[in-house]
């Protein structure tokens, strides 16, 4: 029961990532691409947490934490570059 519901949630998150990827490829300006990159990361954080529960390995949560940290830094740096150059 619980496993089935978690599988459906994984499906929804996968669909969301596909839609985001569409905007990432199409997006007319650089900002659009950075926004979709940000949302891709946030969705993957949820994805990794569910997968960590599924595989029963708590160490995957550390992966999610470091991943979130790196993507946050990346977004800030790109935004700074857009605003006035590095």
């Amino acid at each position, binding site marked *: 029961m*619980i496993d089935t*519901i978690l599988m459906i*949630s994984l499906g929804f998150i996968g669909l969301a990532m596909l839609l985001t990827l569409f*905007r990432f490829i199409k997006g007319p300006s650089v900002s659009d691409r950075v*926004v979709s990159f940000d949302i891709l990361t*946030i969705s993957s954080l949820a994805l990794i*947490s569910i997968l960590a529960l599924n595989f029963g390995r708590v160490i995957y*949560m550390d992966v999610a934490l470091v991943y979130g940290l790196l993507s946050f830094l990346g977004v800030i740096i790109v935004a700074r570059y857009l605003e006035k150059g590095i």
Partner: protein
Amino acid sequence: METLQTIGAFVVLAGSIFIFLGALGLVRMPDVYNRIQAGTKASTLGTLLTLVGLIMIMPAWWNKFLLLAIFVIITNPVSSHVLARASHAAKIRLSKKTVTDHYETYKKEKEEKAHGVKS
């Protein structure tokens, strides 16, 4: 115990639906500011709900899930604000539906003032 886990699974499902809605908003909205609005924040709530549901399913790992939730709550508004300001500085246009832009008029006034002092 079993009922709490089932409730948690449904909370996870609700969170994933919010993430999906955020992505849908990202595709449908007309300009980058509205995309930031619809996208980042719906997915923030979605991730939060997912983590809360996972805590209900697996209470032994609560510390990692809670840390990730705090991290998401603190960093996400910062990155969306920085992106919005950078887009405005890079002169990316607002959509045609936009009613008003007080920020643009403020920037112009400031520039004119600086120019006046110089000349």
